[in-house]
């Protein structure tokens, strides 16, 4: 993994690892849960020596506990939604690219049409399909929109692979098409897929936060970075930390994922 990784990529990786660890270990670091209300400290400012390191919200809930819980949601939805979109995208793109001809034309035409639609709308419509606050539904809805780019990339790569000798050899020895796709095509597009999947994660995190910002995503008592930013924006005049904490966290998270993805993409392109 170390070969060809520049400083930015490595820093991004370290930052992400730290954030993920912090998010996972938070329940053992802080005595507060994301929904515990501390009646003595409502809208308390951040205090390093005090009980609430990052302050509390208007109701008196610990902001550190809440942002870490939100971070867990973000990471989980980012990864799961990306998995959903990778599965659909790889299957779709590899099939279209390998079969070629009319099948390819129809499949990619469909991708083009959906691509032309404003994705935010599709996410908003899809999010209404499920009970509000169902996190599983949320990542399926988000992942169902995110696979288009992946399908295009995988198709492009597959086009270059399908006339290579090892594919011909597999056909000649009688391997069936699904097997060829799974054994010979998909493993060869893996490095590009990993790079773009890393770039897809911040996109998914962004959609989730955006939906939650609008009030369509994660619901109380659970927090999302988006809903925390929305709450913070309403209180920013009197208690700016409520906005600054989740905003900083989201910024760092998105920036780190993008840097990492860019680094991996540069590496994947160098391999070709």
């Amino acid at each position: 993994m170390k070969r060809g990784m520049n400083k930015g990529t490595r820093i991004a990786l370290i930052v992400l690892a730290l954030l993920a660890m912090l998010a996972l270990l938070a329940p053992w670091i802080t005595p507060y849960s994301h929904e515990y209300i501390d009646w003595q400290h409502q809208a308390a400012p951040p205090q390093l020596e005090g009980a609430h390191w990052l302050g509390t919200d208007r109701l008196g809930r610990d902001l550190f506990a809440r942002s870490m819980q939100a971070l867990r949601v973000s990471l989980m939805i980012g990864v799961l939604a990306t998995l959903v979109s990778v599965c659909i995208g790889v299957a779709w793109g590899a099939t279209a690219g390998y079969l070629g001809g009319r099948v390819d034309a129809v499949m990619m035409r469909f991708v083009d049409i959906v691509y032309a639609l404003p994705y935010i709308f599709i996410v908003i419509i899809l999010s209404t399909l499920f009970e509000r606050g169902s996190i599983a539904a949320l990542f399926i809805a988000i992942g169902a929109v995110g696979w288009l780019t992946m399908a295009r990339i995988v198709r492009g790569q597959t086009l270059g692979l399908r006339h290579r000798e090892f594919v011909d050899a597999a056909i000649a020895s009688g391997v069936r098409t699904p097997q060829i796709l799974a054994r010979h095509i998909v493993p060869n597009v893996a490095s590009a897929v990993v790079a773009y999947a890393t770039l897809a994660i911040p996109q998914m995190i962004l959609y989730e936060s955006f939906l939650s910002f609008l009030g369509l995503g994660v619901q109380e008592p659970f927090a999302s970075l988006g809903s925390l930013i929305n709450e913070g924006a309403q209180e920013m005049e009197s208690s700016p930390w409520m906005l600054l904490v989740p905003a900083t966290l989201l910024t760092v998270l998105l920036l780190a994922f993008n840097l990492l993805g860019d680094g991996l993409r540069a590496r994947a392109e160098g391999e070709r």
Partner: protein
Amino acid sequence: MLTYTLRRIAGLVPTLFILVTLSFFIIRLSPGGPFDQQQALPPEIRANLDAAYGFDRPLLEQYGRYLADVSQGELGPSLRYKDFTVNELIARGLPLSLTIGLAAALLAFFVGVPLGAYAAWRAHSVSDHAIMGFSTLGVVLPGFVVGPLLALLFGIYWPIFRVGGYEPGVVSFLVLPVITLALPVSAYVARLMRNSLEEVLRANYIRTARAKGLSSREIFLRHALRPALVPVISYLGPAVAFVVTGSLVVESVFGLPGSGRFLVQGAVDRDYPMVMGMILVYGVLTLLCNLIADLLYAWLDPRVRLT
């Protein structure tokens, strides 16, 4: 060029049809209905309401009717705002949304192009790295983070602009929303411009121009600028589309009475005609912007027309 244009316009029809069909059925399949309230309505009233809006008919028949209405430009009555049609409501908010969107797109290009050009001209210098760093940040940060932060800085701590709400004609309310919306676009344009100009500057004809003894200024204005702008112009369409949909975020952050809020509110209230109307209007806008950009691109680069 004419054939290409006509072919592209004809290509919009199936896209729009799929958009309408998909959103119609998805929104109808979602749980809950427009008349669900805290208190359940008496069944007779409920039945009357359903009958009045045609919701008691089979779904396919409703779909057929909706298509017929839409093809005549009728988006139907709003279920939430009684006595208003969706056409009236959208027409009320759209001018403000479009004003913000267009202003942001203009600002983005007039800031992004010079920034990118300067970065390419001084490639690998400190200012290049600074501009590209800003660009990465601008591309990554979403409007709902930038918006509140700008409002906090320039609306509260250093109150040079007004935030929160809108009074018609007061430009001060619109400055921060427009900047918020323009930031990611200008960052992306700067990056595009830098990369394309840097490539152009390495071309043989630029070397020839230098060898001829032309000044840097002349090389830049007469030989380098125009070819470098091609990828930037092809981004114009997606950028305008982004800005038009992005006004959704900005309007909710800054509490502006544009049309964006109708989409979200409609989705929450299950105000079917409202959601459908918003999706159609914004969908058509997006598709038109992409079309115009593609045509512009085909006009600049004749090879595109043949494929």
